[in-house]
């Protein structure tokens, strides 16, 4: 991993006061660096931002087949 390690991370800039604030905040938490904290927060924000599955991933035909099986097994009335 070390041979391509530097390809796996990018450097981004954040305001210095924000950096200092985070640095002060993560003392005594499970985060061992400002980078790991920022990564955590961004992953959380990004995942909450994903468009939700509206249940239209199956074609009507597939969905009917599934319902038929669920009915035959007694999972659906």
């Amino acid at each position, binding site marked *: 991993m070390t041979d391509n390690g530097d390809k796996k991370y990018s450097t981004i800039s954040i305001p210095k006061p924000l950096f200092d604030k985070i640095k002060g905040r993560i003392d005594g938490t499970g985060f061992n660096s400002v980078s790991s904290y920022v990564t955590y927060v961004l992953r959380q924000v990004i*995942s909450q931002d994903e468009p939700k599955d509206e249940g239209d*991933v199956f074609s009507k035909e597939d969905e009917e087949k599934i*319902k038929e099986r669920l009915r035959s097994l007694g999972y659906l009335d």
Partner: protein
Amino acid sequence: MINPHGGELIDRNMEGPARERLAVDPQDIPVFDIDNDIASDLQNIADGNYSPLTGFMTRNDYDNVLEHMRLENDVPWTIPIILPVPEGAVSAGEGDDLILRHNGRNMAVMKIEEEFELDPARHSQAVFGTTDPEHPGVAVVNEYGKRVLGGEIWLLNEMESPFPTYHLKPAETRVLFQERGWETVVAFQTRNPPHVGHEYLQKTALTMTDGLLINPVIGRKKQGDFTDRVILDSYDALIDHYYPKDRVVLSTLQMVMRYAGPREAIHHSIIRKNFGCTHFIVGRDHAGVGNYYEPFAAQEIFSEFADLEIKPFFFRSFKYCHACMSVVNEKTCPHPDEKITNFAGTMVRKIVNEGAIPPPEMMRAEVAEVIKAAEVPFVQ
């Protein structure tokens, strides 16, 4: 409804004339015979239980999972899903197709994208936190072939399910939850017949969600584990007498236990997210074995994943308190030990060995009767 893990529900069941041909005749494609453990992983990939995986891991994903508990594309993933083969067992190499055969049937065709070498000690240290050969997961890894094949798969024939009427795929549970109008669903994973503590835990969780998925893991077990039949029959009895039927689903998950504790708790929750569950129950020492993991390590690990989306419900261990006259835990009950009865596994052994039905505060009579009546309650 909650998104499948990684955004897309995977379906690798092959259809059409190519499937019909390959399913019976591998033609010139080399064949490799796989065991039940690999076959169940294969089935889980094909059905989308392991979405977004579309095959066995290639090296970058494998390395990233070992080192960072994520796929190469940053999606959380904690358990390597790999195809190890013994040296010399497969003549095919990178770029070739390979038929994976199980119990004499051509189960899948795989496009070998990459091969790499397995380092069992590195693998076990990362996944299990130990290389102790006594650890059942480590023992399995030590038996692996040292050559690992990665690449996408297409399923030709389904693995035989011992309980086909309980076998639901993610596409099916998702439609089922939608039809029942459940927006929030909590999943409970189990390897045991239910005692009153389990019931209390499930019903506590169900109080906060629209539905409950009881999802026993079936498949290979250790000697002395309960048989799958007893687990399913005892849950049927419990649900029949004590659960509102429009709020609960019982279905199986055919998968091998790795006993990887914390990492496996994340893996288990990812699969339930693919089933359409929004919550997952994590108890004490989830997927643990012996004393290899701290009792609550499988709960603490969730704090490392901000982007898992499925939410864990953490529970302490439940006990029965004769003063409270209810199921309690140390947070809810002030009484000393002499008032407390634990839900011990020995209680169930007594049913089997002595035919003794436990008191009702320990186990429902209907459940105890199922265990008592079972011809083979434990794996021999």
